[in-house]
Structure formats: C-alpha cells, structure tokens
C-alpha cells in the first residue's frame, strides 16, 4: 500500500486531497462531513470583515450533455460572523486533530492582519492561506487579486503576516496576471512558506439574449466573475508547472483548478504540486467524490511501483521545457487502423480544411466502410485527426524520426543554423 500522507510545508495531512476555500468549506458541519468522507484537508472559506453577497451568484458553461464544464461565480468571502467561523474552526480541529485545517484570510490593514492571525491561531488551525486571488468584488476594494496583481504590495503584505504568524502560511495566487512567477517570487521574497494556485479566472460566462443581461444576472445587471471547473485545468496546470521549475520559487505548491478525478490530481502532482485542492467538482457531486480520488490514486501509485505521493510529485517537471529546447528531429505521422474505422470521415474533413490536406477518401469502400488513408510524406504529425477520431485506438501517431541526432531550435541558434529558407530576404 503506497503512503498517501503528505507533509505540506509542515502541515500534515492523511492524503493530498484538500477542499479549496469556497462554499464547501463554509461551515464546521460541512468540513466535518468532508473529513468523515475521506478528505485529507480543507481550506476554510475566506474570512474577512463582514461583506454582503448578491443573489444570484453562479452560472455555468455546459458542453454537450456535460453540465458545469466551467463555473463562474460572483460570490465574495464569507458572509458569516467571524466569531461563528472561529468557534466552528476550533470545533473541527478538536474533532479531527490529524486532518489538515487551513484558514483562508483577506484583510486590509496591518493591524487587522495581526489581530485575525492571533485569533485564528488560537483555534488550533494548522495553517493560513492568504487570499490574493479573488478576482471580482473584493479587488474593487483593493483586496484579493488587486494584491495578487501587484508584486510589491503582495510582498509587503506577506511580510506583515510572516512577522506574526507561527503556523505555516500559504499565499493563494490569482491567474489573472501576465506571468505568475512575478507574484510567486514576491511572496517568496516576503518569506512565504508555500503557494497555492489558481484562484478563479476573470470571466463573463454568457448573456441572456432575451433580457440582454450578462450571466449570472442580479436582477437587471451582472458583473464579471471568476471562472473555475474542468475548463480551467489546463490554465492551472501550466501555472503550477511554471512555478515548479522556477528555481526562485523553492516552496511547496498546492495545485488548484478543475480537478475532478484522481487522474487530474495525479497530473497536478506530476507537474510539481504537493497537494491538490478541489472546489467545483465537490459543488457538483458532493464530498463523496473523494473515495474514487483516493482509491484511484492509490491504485495508480501501486501500478507504477511508487511507494508514496512524494515520489510522484514533480515527476514530469523535467520534461516540461521551453519550446526552444524541443527536438526538431522528432517526427510522427498518423496511422489509421482500417479494422477499427467506422467511416465517419471526421479525420478527413479536419485535416482537409483545418490542417495539411493529407488524409484522403478512397472512391470505393473496402468492405462496409470507406476508410480514409494518410499521405504520409505530407503529414506534419499535428495530432488533429487523432483528436477528432471518435474511435479509441483507431488513429495512432507513429514515430518516424527525421534524423538520428537530437536537435532543438536553441541548438540551431547556437550552431548558427537558425535561418529557415523562404523568408523576407528571398523575396
């Protein structure tokens, strides 16, 4: 049995699966039920000075028959009194001493930060998460992503916190920046213990075309919101990986964004996350999804002969490179398995109209279906046909190297062979 337990910047957790700071962690009752269901940790819904929320708050992108492939919200931080939250945090910690309980915070003045940290530490919570990510509402008041987008301000705030905090502190970053390494490095300069990302992506999810009001509508108007759910996973993975390979960010990372299955989680871990946090998938299906998250990860580690989560963390980071380092002599071509082909011709039309015109239709069917064929020398190996093919294993990409040696663009630049024929100079 592999060891799923993790030590995240000194915060111990029975497994790497945490609930993200969001509605599922609004109350003690919810967090206790989540721990009972198997979640290893939870980041409490962000505490701050009292706010007022609007109604409605959520809207989603459905894709085909999939509901909530992306979710957008205009909810702010907790709207419950601080005293209630603190009491419940303490109760959860008493009942679940070995689970990881982190409290998310968002305040303005140095004094407020000092006061709240003392109060939170009194509850016995295991760590703090600084919400520098909320991209709507709070940022209009100079908090949340307004801080996350200003590295100097962020660094200053982290310093205030680190002066007083005695438990590990995580800074939660916003993806709404040009280069996520800037706020991350600022947090590290400020002395942060760990990072988590991503918070939600600024978005307008749609428009009610009858009423001419964007969604989710609050009566006759709406505002931009924060986007999350399966749709944002690729954005989050990239940002996590960018930090994981950045030597200037030597702190552990908690990966967040679109995680719904053990496979999603394993991908975050492989790209350098030490724990993962989940919000939308739980809002969709409930705490119970953690059973398959744990079971699936456990079996995956077993299959790969890994003894701990730690061994998976960062395993794919060395293979995450700059474009200029990729091997230009590596080449693949599409191969269509005629025994599997069902004759939909989607690969043909995709390649013909959307790629390089190298999948052709025979005039006569062979047997029951007309199986398209690949003009190999013309195929650039882009994958498009394999991506559109609805039949598992029907189109595979076969390796056809162009040269024995590895050569990247950077190698060519270094060797002075970076001029490609056909440029302006030849006109």
């Amino acid at each position, binding site marked *: 049995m592999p060891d799923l337990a993790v030590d995240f910047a000194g915060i111990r957790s029975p497994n790497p699966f945490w609930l993200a700071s969001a509605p599922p962690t609004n109350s003690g009752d919810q967090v206790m039920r989540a721990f009972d269901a198997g979640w290893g940790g939870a980041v409490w819904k962000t505490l701050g000075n009292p706010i007022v929320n609007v109604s409605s708050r959520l809207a989603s992108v459905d894709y085909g*028959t*999939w509901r909530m492939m992306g979710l957008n919200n205009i909810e702010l931080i907790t709207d419950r009194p601080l005293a209630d939250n603190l009491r419940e945090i303490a109760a959860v910690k008493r009942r679940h001493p070995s689970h990881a309980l982190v409290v998310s915070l968002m305040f303005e003045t140095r004094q407020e930060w000092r006061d709240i940290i003392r109060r939170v530490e009194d509850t016995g919570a295991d760590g703090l998460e600084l919400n520098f990510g909320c991209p709507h509402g709070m940022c209009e008041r100079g908090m949340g992503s307004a801080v996350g987008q200003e590295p100097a301000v962020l660094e200053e705030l982290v310093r205030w916190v680190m002066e007083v905090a005695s438990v590990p502190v995580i800074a939660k970053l916003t993806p709404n920046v040009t280069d996520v390494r800037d706020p991350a490095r600022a947090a590290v300069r400020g002395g942060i213990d760990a990072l988590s990302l991503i918070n939600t992506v600024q978005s307008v999810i749609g428009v009610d075309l009858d009423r001419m009001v964007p969604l989710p509508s609050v009566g006759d108007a709406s505002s931009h919101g924060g986007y999350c759910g399966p749709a944002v996973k690729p954005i989050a993975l990239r940002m996590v990986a960018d930090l994981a390979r950045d030597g200037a960010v030597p702190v552990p990372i908690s990966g967040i964004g679109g995680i719904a*299955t*053990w*496979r999603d989680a394993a991908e975050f871990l492989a790209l350098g996350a030490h724990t993962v946090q989940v919000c939308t998938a739980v809002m969709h*299906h*409930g705490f*119970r*999804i953690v*059973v*398959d998250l744990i*079971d*699936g990860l456990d*079996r995956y580690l077993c299959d790969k002969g890994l003894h701990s989560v730690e061994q998976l963390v960062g395993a794919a980071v060395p293979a995450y490179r700059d474009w200029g380092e990729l091997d230009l002599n590596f080449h693949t071509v599409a191969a269509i398995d005629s025994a599997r082909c069902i004759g939909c011709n989607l690969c043909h039309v995709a390649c013909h109209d959307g790629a390089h015109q190298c999948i052709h239709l025979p005039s006569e069917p062979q047997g029951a279906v007309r199986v398209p064929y690949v003009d190999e020398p013309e195929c650039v190996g882009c994958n498009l046909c394999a991506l559109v093919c*609805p*039949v*598992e294993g029907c189109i595979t990409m076969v390796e056809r190297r162009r040269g024995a040696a590895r050569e990247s663009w950077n190698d060519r630049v270094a060797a002075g062979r970076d001029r490609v024929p056909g440029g302006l100079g030849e006109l």
Partner: protein
Amino acid sequence: MSRYPVPQDRSEAAFAERYPLLSSAEARAEAARCLYCFDAPCVQRCPTEIDIPSFIRSIGTDNLRGAARTILDANLLGDSCARVCPVEVLCQSTCVYVHQGRPAIPIGRLQRYAMAHGMAPDMLQPASPSGRSVGLVGAGPASLACAGALALRGHAPVIYERDTWPGGLNATGIAPYKFQITDNLREVAFIESLGVEIRTGVEIGGDLGPDRLLAQHDALFLGIGLGPDRRLGVPGEDRPQVVGATHWIRRLKTDPGFRVDGVRRAVVVGGGNTAVDTARELLVLGVPSVQLVYRRGRPDMSGYDHELGPALADHRLQLIEHVNVVEVLDARRGVEVLLGDHSGTLASVPADLVVVAIGQARLDRWARAFPGVTCDDRGRIEVDPHTMATGNPRVFAGGDAVNGGKEVVHAVRDGQRAARAIDALLQEVAGA
C-alpha cells in the same frame, strides 16, 4: 482451467450472447452519461444495494479495479448478477432518465464490464483464521455468497454439493444467451480463492445427515434451492416426449449428446420465467414451431414481459392462453397434447416435445430433518428475515429454499445476510 471439467460439445456453447461485453468506447460513453445521482433509486432497487453510481463513476475515471471492488464489497457474485439479473425490473427500471423519456443507463452491462476488466485475484483479503468451521448444503448462489463472506471473516466454510458442478442453477439453469456453465465456473473459482472448500458429488441426507453435519461444524447454512420439476398429473405424462423444464435446460447446458434436431413442434407448459426461457431457447435452437400454453391470461403470467414480448415477435412462437393440458396421447409422430378448460377439451396440438415448466417441488421434508427447522405451508424454510436463522439457532437458510424461487441476487443477499449473522454467532460463542 477449472477444477470441474465440462464437456466441449455442449449445445449451450453454440448460443450467442444476448448482451456482449461492452467495448471501452461504449462503456465510457455510458459511464459519462450516468448522472451519479445521490441516494440513487437504482441502489435502493438492488437487493444487495451495490453502490451503482460510485462504481460507474470509477469506470468513468478509468479506475476499473476500484469499480470491481465497489461491486464486490456489496455482492460477491457481482459477475453473475451483472449478467443474469433482470435489471429491466430491478435497478435499471428506476434510472432517473426514465422519467425524462430517455434510455436508462445499462447498469447490468456496465457492471459486467467492470468485473471483466477490474477483477484481480487478490482483490479481497480474508481476515486471519478464526478456527471456526461452517457447513453449507448446496453450492448455488446462496451458499457461494454465504461461504465467500464467511471466508472473508476468517471462518472455514465447507460446501457440500451433490451435483458434478458447483453453481446450482447458475451452472445448470440460466439461459445460455445470458450466462454459461463455463462463466459460472470462473466465478466459482473466485469464491474458492477466498478460502472456500467445495466438495462436489456429496449429497447430504441418509448417512451424512443433520446429526453428522451439526457435529462437524459450528454452524450450518442450507442453500438447497428447490426440488425436481413439478408434474402435470395428467394421463400420458410418462411418455418420453414429455420432460420437466429444469431437467431439459440442464441437459441443454451440460449434456454433450443433447440435440433437438428432430423436434419440429414443441409445446411449453407454464407462465413463469422458466417457461419463457425454455420457449426462447427452443427458438434459438431452430425449432420451427413453439406453442406456449398457459392456464390463465398474459397479464397473469409471472414471466417477465421484457423476455416474453421480444420472443413473441418471432412468428414461430404462439401463446395459447386460458387452457390446461388435459391429456397427452400417443400419435403416429410424437404426441397429441389435449388442451381444455373447465368446460372440457378444446383443442389438440401435435408435438415432438412437451416441456413442463409449472414450477419445482419443495424440499421441506428434507429440511425438517434438521432439529428445530420448520417450513411454512408452501414448503418454504422459515427464517428470521434479518439473520436468516431457522428455528435452530445454529442452522441458517437462504435462497430459493426460503423464498420459494426468486432471482440469483436474492439468493446472494440471503447468503451474505446469513454470513453476517453466523459471524456474530461465532464471535458470541467465542466470547462466551
């Protein structure tokens, strides 16, 4: 290779599967369609309460071993149940999609997929040995499930089966287009791998009776099923063309010499699932004309409509309602079956084969030989429904012998329920 060889040229081996194993593309698409309902109606409708939404989600995340494990945790015979359960009236009938007029999730087929790809030999780990032994009579689904569950709790179960093959009706009764004896033997091997001993060719009774069993084991489970096919009780029934249904199906499934080549016209008597199965099997075997004779009307038939309806779409099958068999007469070719109602003889049907599917006898006399064991007036062993304990606190029972003849999944539920109670009893005794 199974410990129990079966003849190669069985007739059933030629039957095509009605619902073949799903491809991974099909399974994934169906798993993605499942809504993963909370407190799902399908679970409530499964007698063994398999956590259906969870195992289907695990199929969707490509955690097939997790899916198989979820199934086995609730039902040790999850493989045969996936293939023999009448899901049309059980789990699938309650799929919430039905309320939207959309096709239900094919739960049975997804369950089969999970079991086919997700089962691993060491998936379930038995507890350390308790030193207690339990004797089980009959190796049908009830006993297999009970024995498997007992083995997992560390007890040593020994099953006594009079037949050549373990499996009960899973070996010798299920329609071949659903489940064949070879499929059954694979599942039996899995149950044996948990630490279950099966002794075939051993009939309990006579010298090896209640006294010896009670002396040899700490507790007993009676999973003996039902007795031989009931007879019509009409003149001419002894003619060689007239056979009992379970006897005939058993030959179809296990007898190398079994053929129906000469049968041009067959009559099946009865209105239950065995009668409907028999009619469908005769059609698959290519018999040109099959008459299903039932004493009341179609709405009264206990055979499932989802089985009978499609069969009746075949013009070779005719349903004759509201008549009884009055007499079977010798004819120049085969026999003449005289049909009638209370007002007298109505028709005469020529036949080369008459299969009688009007139920099976009860083994109540056999069961009563166990001290304290009682039966109701319909010959069913009486038990406490929560523990499956009979009037004798060391003797438990379940399956067809208790419910009078239901489905495999009910037998499994009974067996597992009894295993829990037997385990509690053995621990109590150990603690005392």
